């Protein structure tokens, strides 16, 4: 069906093409015919023109020959010849033109004859003119031959013209008719061709459109078909899968049931284990608490140990210091004991000398005695010092500072009275301290008597005692306007045993040593500031 339509279309197209070709050929033919008729019209025109040309040439010939004849000037011969030649050539042309028309051919022949005759006549007259002169020519021409020829030529050419004119008119009429017919015919042919062509185009377009649509539909159908096929296949697959899945589900369900049973059992097991774990957790919590407690205890113990360690280091330091002090003490004691011993040794050696005078012996004996007393003193001092150092745990009581100073003032009233000595005290912050009274008394007494002892000889002696309460300690300050000590030189020895700084004043160098020992025994500290010839200030600090 598809193929036949296409064939039909082809056939139709070829038919239209053939018709169009035939019509085109018809137009061509008709055009040729029209061209022919036009040619014939032109032909007639040519004939008319040529004939008129010949006529005018004949006249020209007549005129030029006559001119020569009159003038005998050879100048006129040249155009005459020329005209004659032209006339003959035109005659030839006319003959050719009229060869299709026997009548006109005949007339042309006759025209030719008369032209020849005219030419011959002209030649004869020219000859005569040249040889015999004008008169002879005139004589010769009296017959009017030339006139006759010319008239004949005019007649004939007119006839030709007339005849041809009739033909021309006829031909022109035919040509006009032909032209109208041709234009009508070609218009019709054109319309026909156009109609056929349009029809062909419409038919072909329709066919093409239909074909396209069909193809599209076919393609769509093909795709849809494929889709359906695919879907079908998919459905088949899915069905198979569903079957398998179904089986799987069935199997899984069975498994799940089994598993559920197992889980029930496992759950029970877990419950039991959980209970156990809770019990264990409780036990662990208890144990943990115990550990935390133990850790705390350990931390405390560590802190205590640290403190103990610090305490121990402190104690070691203290012990080392004490040891050093004791060494120094021993050194000083031995040194001080050795001095009187050396004296006794020396003196007793000397006493053995026979040659000594009585006076010398007395001196030596006195010296020995003094030295022995010195040794005794030192032993007493030692006893005293050791007593203080040993009695750390004396009974403590509240001691009022002002009362203490008043007591001392009373005990040394003879000294105060003898010299110009003033003892002032001021205890506004703190006037009492819980301590070992005899020691504090000894400290106060030693410091006051020191100030008295080392006062400036030419100055009134003023002693001031004050107390201050600081953050966590009591501060006692003893100041005087005495001789002072050169601390730059003797700073390290102020509190040393048997250290003395003033040559002419009686003293053993024991007082300040005892003060320091007692202050330290009571847990305090003592320091000194002094300037020579200005005064001395002792500062004692006791912790509260």
């Amino acid at each position, binding site marked *: 069906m598809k193929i036949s339509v296409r064939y039909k279309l082809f056939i139709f197209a070829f038919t239209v093409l053939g018709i169009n070709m035939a019509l085109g050929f018809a137009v061509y033919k008709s055009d040729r015919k029209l061209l022919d008729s036009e040619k014939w019209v032109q032909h007639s025109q040519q004939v008319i023109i040529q004939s008129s040309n010949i006529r005018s040439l004949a006249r020209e010939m007549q005129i030029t020959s006559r001119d020569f004849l009159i003038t005998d000037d050879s100048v006129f011969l040249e155009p005459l010849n020329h005209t004659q030649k032209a006339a003959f050539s035109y005659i030839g042309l006319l003959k050719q033109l009229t060869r299709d028309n026997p009548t006109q051919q005949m007339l042309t022949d006759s025209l030719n004859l008369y032209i020849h005759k005219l030419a011959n006549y002209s030649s004869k007259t020219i000859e005569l003119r040249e040889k015999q002169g004008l008169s002879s020519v005139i004589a010769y021409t009296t017959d009017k031959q030339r006139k006759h020829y010319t008239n004949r030529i005019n007649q004939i050419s007119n006839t030709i013209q007339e005849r041809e004119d009739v033909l021309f008119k006829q031909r022109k009429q035919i040509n006009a008719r032909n032209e109208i017919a041709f234009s009508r015919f070609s218009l019709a042919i054109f319309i026909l061709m156009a109609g056929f062509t349009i029809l062909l185009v419409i038919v072909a377009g329709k066919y093409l459109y239909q074909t396209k649509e069909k193809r599209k539909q076919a393609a769509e159908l093909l795709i849809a078909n494929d889709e359906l096929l695919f879907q079908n296949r998919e459905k088949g697959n899915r069905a198979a899968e569903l079957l398998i899945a179904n089986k799987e589900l069935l199997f899984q369900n069975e498994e799940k049931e089994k598993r559920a049973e197992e889980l029930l059992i496992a759950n029970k097991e877990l419950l039991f284990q959980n209970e156990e774990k809770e019990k264990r957790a409780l036990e662990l919590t208890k144990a943990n608490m115990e550990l935390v407690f133990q850790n705390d205890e350990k931390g405390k113990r560590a802190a205590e140990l640290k403190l103990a360690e610090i305490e121990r280091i402190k104690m070691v330091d203290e012990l080392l210091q004490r040891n050093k002090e004791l060494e120094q003490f021993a050194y000083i004691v031995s040194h001080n004991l*050795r001095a009187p011993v050396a004296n006794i040794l*020396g003196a007793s050696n000397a006493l053995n000398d026979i040659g000594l005078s009585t006076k010398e012996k007395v001196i030596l004996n006195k010296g020995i005695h003094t030295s022995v007393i010195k040794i005794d003193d030192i032993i007493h001092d030692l006893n005293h010092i050791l007593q203080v150092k040993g009695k750390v745990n004396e009974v403590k009581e509240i001691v009022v500072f002002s009362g203490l100073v008043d007591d001392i003032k009373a005990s040394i009233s003879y000294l105060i009275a003898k010299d110009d000595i003033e003892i002032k005290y001021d205890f506004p912050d703190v006037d009492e301290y819980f301590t070992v009274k005899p020691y504090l008394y000894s400290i106060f007494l030693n410091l006051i008597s020191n100030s008295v002892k080392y006062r400036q000889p030419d100055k009134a002696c003023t002693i001031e005692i004050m107390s201050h309460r600081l953050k966590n300690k009591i501060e006692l300050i003893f100041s005087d306007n005495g001789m002072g000590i050169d601390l730059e030189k003797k700073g390290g020895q102020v509190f040393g045993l048997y250290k003395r700084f003033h040559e002419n004043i009686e003293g053993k160098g024991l007082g300040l040593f005892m003060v320091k020992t007692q202050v330290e025994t009571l847990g305090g500290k003592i320091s000194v500031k002094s300037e020579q010839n200005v005064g001395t200030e002792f500062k004692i600090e006791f912790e509260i």
Partner: protein
Amino acid sequence: MSTDLKFILVDDDSFTNLLHDMILKDTLGEETDVEAFTEPEKGLEFIQKKYTGELGNTILFLDINMPQINGWEFLEQYEKFSEVIKAQINIYILSSSLDWRDKDKAAANTTVNGFISKPLDFEIITEIAGKEFHHSVLQAKNGGRGF
């Protein structure tokens, strides 16, 4: 008998000075020139005053343990004296100390000629005098008294 040898004693204990003066004179003769000072400053003053010219060889016995100025401080001051003075005086530490530290300290001091433990006696005096005067002193000693 008399020698050119002179003695200076510096000790804060007057009995010690008296004793040593007696022992020196007993060993070297009554005429022996002995100057004793209980205050070191006075000793220094004396030296500065007297030893400007040619006074002769002198032995100075110096105690260490003294108030105000001790033996070492005395030496510090003495070292500042002129070479003329120092050429004439030979210093010996004369101390009651038996401590080795004092002996070491004395040995380390170039101004100190020696360390002697108290008391002075015949042997020590003759030894020191012998060091300073060799035979002349030893010969002179023969005429003196012994202990």
